[in-house]
């Protein structure tokens, strides 16, 4: 460790534990000094400190040593007493306030980072006024009667030469009434050294008079104790001093005054000599002498074994004496006081060994006396003596702690002593690099006095900072604690200073409450100091405090607005986080050659549109690669890189604002910030409220005029939006900018006004934005920065289109005629209109004349009889582009209307995309063509669920039974099944029986289901074989289900029915094509007119349900039918009866087959088996071998079916006659007739089902190549054919 005397504490002790000199003076002396703007003490004090006085001193034991540094303190007699609490407080407050005023300039400076705080040396960081403050605190504890070092050792009596009777004045001044109570009440020896100083003012008179007085004084008081001091020798009072000794006093006086202006060199020299003489010839020898005398006395009374025993004995007896608070416990001539004074004098003369031994001696005495204050004082001095001796650290600390706790125990009366002791203790620890412990001591000093505590806590904070390793968090915490206390004492400047220090620790902390607290308070205090810019900056930090509770949020916000209000200005804030902008969601929508009908269309993925437009738009490669193209037509490189937009057409930017607070906020005047530059003034881009780059870093600036944009109104229009946001709400705002002039437009950012007082600005191009934003319209590799620049080109025609009354929600099958309306507001002609629809199954193009017809009535049969039934060339329109006729609109004065068919083909949510392509006539433009993109969403609800089952009718070869099951799947809607049609001329459809009474008024109610049967006849097959059906009347393919008359039937062979039928066929196409015998059904239903439906429909709503590829016919490809009489009468008496039957066999395959018909005379296999075999289609070649058990298990069904149980043993009552096996060859799609005959032996009803058909494909047919899975052969059992033979009545 360094020399203790050179440490800070050492210097402090030298400064503060030094001999005190009482000064008595007359008013004239003071007046003379006042000429120099100094008091007498102020004038003398610079010369009372000696760095090298070099006075030889001897210790009590006659050890000589030389005193180098020496200082004595001067006090007026009136000041030698303990200050009142109020006065002390006031003084401290002054020091602090003064320090605060001095440092205010630093508060605006830039915030230092924590790294720099650590690296800065402690001296730079710790405020210098701490020393002054600590000194004041220590001084406040001075002149206590329990300590000796504050007791004046000498008295300086000053009288002016102007005074009348100066010698008499000298005597008068040392009058007991004016002396401090310390001298009067016996705490100290009233007989002290007096030094008589005659002050002569050279301005007032000549020196002779003074010399005379001096002579008189010398004769009265003794030669050595008198001295003449001449001052104010300077004539004009303009003396300048190179080394101004009084600089330290400048605080207390105003700066204009010149200190010592009347003191010339000689005066100063005389001052110095006077004080040197006073100290070296009077004070030091006196103290030395006194030490010797006291030491002898103490040795005599207290040293030695006998004295100690005596002392102890005597002390015991004193135990019960109560301490008298009014009078001092120990008078100056008591042994205790003498020892104490001896110690103090020794301490002041650097004889620490002697001092320590005496302190030790007295310490136990005081303890035994329970004189705690004296005890603590002695302990304190012991600690300091240990320190100065650089001996046992432990002892030093123990003594200091002991003193501290003892003082603290005494209570509030010793508050100042506690503070002083603590400061010394802390300094001692600091001198030994025990900063952490020092911080603890400072923390302990901080008591109830807030101002003191604030300073102590701040010092504690710096101790934490200086400890190794630096305890930054503690540093910050204690600074905050101290700042809060400063604020309590209205020391806002200091509060801000401490918080600023804390901010360097807490700046980017994740501890949100801490961060908010620090920022909020520092901001608030800055505002109180009138530094609104700084204040706003800090309060801004806490505005997006979603984690705080509602009350705190309200507090923050109101404080912020209050600050703003106080400034009376409108601020633009770059970092306003209220509301928060969600950067990834920023979306820019602009229209170049792509135009959109609705925002929804713009949100659709670009690739979807591109796929849709692929075969419609000219390819981009084709545009550029052709060398014949003019150079000017090729886009300049610059244009290719930036986006193109068209003058007069808005660019939309979607910004999502989020309110992080729980309280509602109002945001107004939300608009974009744009920069527009035309070609001509490229160098000087017209800016619009854009941020000047140099101001960006401040993040805050004042705007005088809010309507700054007015200058640019001619260049572009901006939209403004006002919103109010609820707590936690996220609002998507669409902002638009409409450029008016060609040039370059740049989107710079967005601005808004919070609660009508603060303008927030968010720059899109700041770094935070750049990395985050992804935009819909461009390739991802392009950053937003590129996307925010637009090349504005001159205006182009832009078509607008709508589809009127496109329903949002429909039932499946709903068929409507819609009108698409195209407008061209610019009236500039466009050409080559093309249209493409993404889902032709749902939406298709109708003929234009449909517009004028009444839907759906014109679709009814009688209405269209006059029209030519041209079959629409469906396949052509299916996938390709629809070209509008060239003359669609000669001039665009009126909107073009074009009808569209809409049919809700399937339930679910359907997105329809329609794109219309058109070219502009202007060839010079960069954009040659444009597309109009429309997007609609339609919700399709399930309505009727229809299924069909077609099975061959036993009664006819080309007849089928159709069973239709319709179920109403809706919850409320009723439908009227209107008509069932099958598509194609070859079909004839008839209702087997009228639809039952279970339908009320023909309506299928919600949830109800309906089954009905139809007979379906294939006319074509019959006709084609004979080739005579060319112009046979068409079969009646339509059946009216409800109502008897056939007048209201719809013609399903025309558009839109056939149009959608084609689409449905494509859609419902089956993978197993089967044999091609399929039929397509169209069920047309009408929705019941709900009166409460919105909007009320004017016409009946038509629903059409298509079911395609219903397989016709049985499972077998070979059909047959038995023809013959159903009953016969025969006279069995004349023999058996022969009945001829005819079997027609039809080959429905495309290949030739050979069919063998086997008649079996044994019993047929169970009827039930044949039945099941025909139902399911997979049992070719499947033979049932367990029919007997089956028959036994289900006797009822067998019996019921056959009429009587046939046992295997029973003899058949009829036999097949003729060949038992016939084989025929059948050509494809042809039929043949096979004659059969049975012989019946008795009367009865017979089931002629005991035959079978076996078919196989004819070998060598090459039609089935590659189709391995195809069934090549099969067998069918006979179908029941009942014949009744009766006994012929004999006539």
């Amino acid at each position, binding site marked *: 460790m360094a020399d203790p005397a050179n440490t800070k504490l050492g210097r402090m002790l030298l400064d503060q534990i030094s001999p005190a000199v009482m000064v008595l003076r007359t008013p004239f002396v003071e007046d003379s000094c006042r000429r120099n703007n100094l008091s007498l003490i102020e004038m003398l004090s610079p010369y009372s400190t000696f760095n090298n006085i070099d006075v030889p001193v001897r210790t009590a034991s006659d050890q000589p040593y030389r005193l180098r540094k020496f200082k004595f303190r001067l006090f007026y007699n009136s000041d030698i007493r303990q200050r009142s609490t109020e006065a002390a407080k006031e003084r401290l407050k002054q020091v602090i306030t003064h320090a605060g005023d001095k440092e205010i300039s630093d508060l605006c400076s830039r915030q230092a980072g924590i790294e720099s705080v650590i690296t800065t040396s402690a001296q730079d960081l710790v405020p210098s006024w701490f020393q002054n403050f600590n000194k004041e605190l220590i001084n406040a504890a001075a002149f206590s009667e329990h300590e000796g070092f504050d007791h004046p050792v000498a008295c300086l009596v000053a009288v002016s030469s102007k005074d009348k009777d100066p010698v008499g004045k000298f005597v008068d001044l040392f009058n007991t009434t004016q002396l401090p109570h310390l001298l009067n009440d016996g705490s100290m020896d009233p007989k002290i050294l007096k030094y008589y100083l005659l002050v002569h003012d050279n301005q007032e008179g000549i020196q002779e008079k003074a010399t005379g007085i001096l002579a008189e004084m010398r004769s009265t008081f003794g030669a050595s104790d008198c001295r003449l001091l001449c001052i104010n020798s300077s004539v004009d009072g303009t003396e300048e001093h190179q080394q101004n000794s009084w600089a330290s006093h400048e605080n207390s006086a105003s700066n204009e005054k010149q200190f010592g202006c009347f003191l010339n060199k000689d005066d100063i020299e005389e001052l110095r000599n006077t004080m040197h003489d006073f100290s070296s010839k009077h004070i030091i020898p006196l103290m030395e002498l006194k030490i010797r005398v006291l030491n002898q006395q103490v040795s005599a009374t207290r040293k030695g074994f006998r004295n100690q025993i005596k002392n102890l004995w005597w002390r015991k007896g004193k135990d019960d004496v109560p301490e008298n608070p009014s009078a001092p416990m120990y008078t100056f001539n008591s042994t205790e006081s003498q020892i104490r004074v001896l110690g103090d004098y020794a301490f002041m003369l650097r004889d620490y060994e002697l001092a320590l031994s005496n302190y030790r001696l007295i310490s136990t005495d005081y303890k035994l006396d329970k004189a705690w204050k004296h005890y603590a004082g002695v302990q304190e001095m012991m600690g300091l003596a240990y320190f100065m001796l650089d001996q046992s650290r432990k002892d030093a600390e123990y003594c200091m702690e002991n003193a501290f706790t003892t003082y603290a125990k005494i209570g509030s009366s010793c508050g100042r002593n506690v503070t002083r002791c603590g400061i010394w203790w802390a300094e001692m620890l600091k001198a030994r690099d025990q900063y952490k412990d020092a911080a603890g001591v400072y923390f302990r000093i901080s008591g109830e006095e807030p101002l003191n505590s604030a300073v102590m806590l701040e010092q504690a904070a710096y101790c*934490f900072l200086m400890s190794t390793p630096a305890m930054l968090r503690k540093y910050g915490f204690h600074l905050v604690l101290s700042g809060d206390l400063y604020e309590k004492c209205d020391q806002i400047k200091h509060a801000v200073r401490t918080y600023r220090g804390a901010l360097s620790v807490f700046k980017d902390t994740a501890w949100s409450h801490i961060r908010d607290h620090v920022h909020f308070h520092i901001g608030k205090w800055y505002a109180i100091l009138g530094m609104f810019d700084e204040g706003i900056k800090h309060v801004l930090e806490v505005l997006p405090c979603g984690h705080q509770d509602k009350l705190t949020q309200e507090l923050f916000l109101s404080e912020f607005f209050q600050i703003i209000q106080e400034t009376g200005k409108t601020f633009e804030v770059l970092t306003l986080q209220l509301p928060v902008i969600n950067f990834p969601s920023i979306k820019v929508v602009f229209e170049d050659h792509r135009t959109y009908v609705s925002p929804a269309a713009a949100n659709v993925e670009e690739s979807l549109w591109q796929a849709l437009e692929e075969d419609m738009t000219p390819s981009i490669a084709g545009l550029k690669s052709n060398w014949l193209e003019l150079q000017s037509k090729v886009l300049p490189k610059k244009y290719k890189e930036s986006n193109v937009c068209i003058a007069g057409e808005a660019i939309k930017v979607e910004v999502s604002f989020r309110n992080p607070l729980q309280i509602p906020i109002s945001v107004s005047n939300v608009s974009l910030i744009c920069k527009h530059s035309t070609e001509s003034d490229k160098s000087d881009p017209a800016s619009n409220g854009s941020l000047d780059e140099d101001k960006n870093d401040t993040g805050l600036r004042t705007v005088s005029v809010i309507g700054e944009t007015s200058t640019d109104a001619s260049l572009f229009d901006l939209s403004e939006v006002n919103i109010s946001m609820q707590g936690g709400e996220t609002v998507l705002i669409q902002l638009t900018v409409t450029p008016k002039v060609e040039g370059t437009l740049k989107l710079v950012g967005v601005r808004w006004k919070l609660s009508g007082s603060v303008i927030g600005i968010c720059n899109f191009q700041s770094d935070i934005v750049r990395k985050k934003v992804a935009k819909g319209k461009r390739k991802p590799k392009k950053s937003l920065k590129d996307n925010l620049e637009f090349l504005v080109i001159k205006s182009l025609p832009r078509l607008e289109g709508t589809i009127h009354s496109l329903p949002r929600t429909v039932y499946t099958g709903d068929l409507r005629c819609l009108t698409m309306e195209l407008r061209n507001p610019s009236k500039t002609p466009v050409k080559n209109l093309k249209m493409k629809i993404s889902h032709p199954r749902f939406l298709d193009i109708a003929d234009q004349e449909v517009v004028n017809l009444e839907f759906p009535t014109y679709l009814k049969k009688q209405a269209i009889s006059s029209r030519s039934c041209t079959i629409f060339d469906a396949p052509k329109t299916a996938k390709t582009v629809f070209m509008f006729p060239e003359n669609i609109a000669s001039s665009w004065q009126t909107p073009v209307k074009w009808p569209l068919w809409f049919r809700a083909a399937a339930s679910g949510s359907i997105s329809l995309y329609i794109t219309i392509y058109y070219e502009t006539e202007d060839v010079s433009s960069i954009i040659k063509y444009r597309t109009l993109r429309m997007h609609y969403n339609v919700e399709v609800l399930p309505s009727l669920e229809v299924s069909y089952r077609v099975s061959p009718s036993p009664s006819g070869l080309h007849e089928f039974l159709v069973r239709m099951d319709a179920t109403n799947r809706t919850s409320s809607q009723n439908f009227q099944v209107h008509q069932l049609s099958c598509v194609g001329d070859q079909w004839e459809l008839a209702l087997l029986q009228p639809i039952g009474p279970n339908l009320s008024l023909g309506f299928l109610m919600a949830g109800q289901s309906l089954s009905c049967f139809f007979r379906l006849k294939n006319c074509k097959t019959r006709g084609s074989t004979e080739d005579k059906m060319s112009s046979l009347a068409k079969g009646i393919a339509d059946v009216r289900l409800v109502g008897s008359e056939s007048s209201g039937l719809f013609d399903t062979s025309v558009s839109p029915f056939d149009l959608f039928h084609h689409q449905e066929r494509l859609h419902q196409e089956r993978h197993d094509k089967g044999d091609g015998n399929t039929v397509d059904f169209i069920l047309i239903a009408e929705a019941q007119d709900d009166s409460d439906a919105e909007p009320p429909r004017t016409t009946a709503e038509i629903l059409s349900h298509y079911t395609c590829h219903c397989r016709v016919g049985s499972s077998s490809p070979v059909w047959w039918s038995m023809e013959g009489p159903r009953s016969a009468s025969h006279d069995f008496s004349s023999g058996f009866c022969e009945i001829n039957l005819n079997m027609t066999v039809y080959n429905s395959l495309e290949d030739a087959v050979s069919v063998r018909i086997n008649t079996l005379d044994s019993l047929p296999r169970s009827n039930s088996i044949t039945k099941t075999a025909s139902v399911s289609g997979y049992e070719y070649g499947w033979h049932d071998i367990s029919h007997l058990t089956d028959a036994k298990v289900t006797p009822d069904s067998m019996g019921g079916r056959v009429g009587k149980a046939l046992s295997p043993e029973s003899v058949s009552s009829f036999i097949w006659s003729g060949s038992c096996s016939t084989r025929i060859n059948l050509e494809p799609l042809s039929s043949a007739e096979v004659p059969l005959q049975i012989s019946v032996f008795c009367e009865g009803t017979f089931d002629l089902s005991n035959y079978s058909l076996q078919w196989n494909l004819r070998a060598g047919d090459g039609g089935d190549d590659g189709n391995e899975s195809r069934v090549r052969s099969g067998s069918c059992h006979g179908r029941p054919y009942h014949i009744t033979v009766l006994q012929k009545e004999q006539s």
Partner: protein
Amino acid sequence: MASTACFMIVSKNDIPIYEAEVGTVPKKEDAAHQHQFILHAALDIVQDTAWNTSAMFLKSIDRFNDLVVSVYVTAGHILSFVMSD
């Protein structure tokens, strides 16, 4: 008797993960930030102490007035603070 207690989990990088005021004392306005301050300051002590001891539970490691901070340090140096009076 009403007691103040605050429980907090702090990650390795001094980022608070979880925070709960569990005392019976009615919630005060400034309690939240005060507790954060105390616990945050205690981190300094924890960092010093945690490496000098093999114990994981550091009882009464720091105190502020009558609030005592104890901490459980996991092997991954995640700190669970308990503060009570």
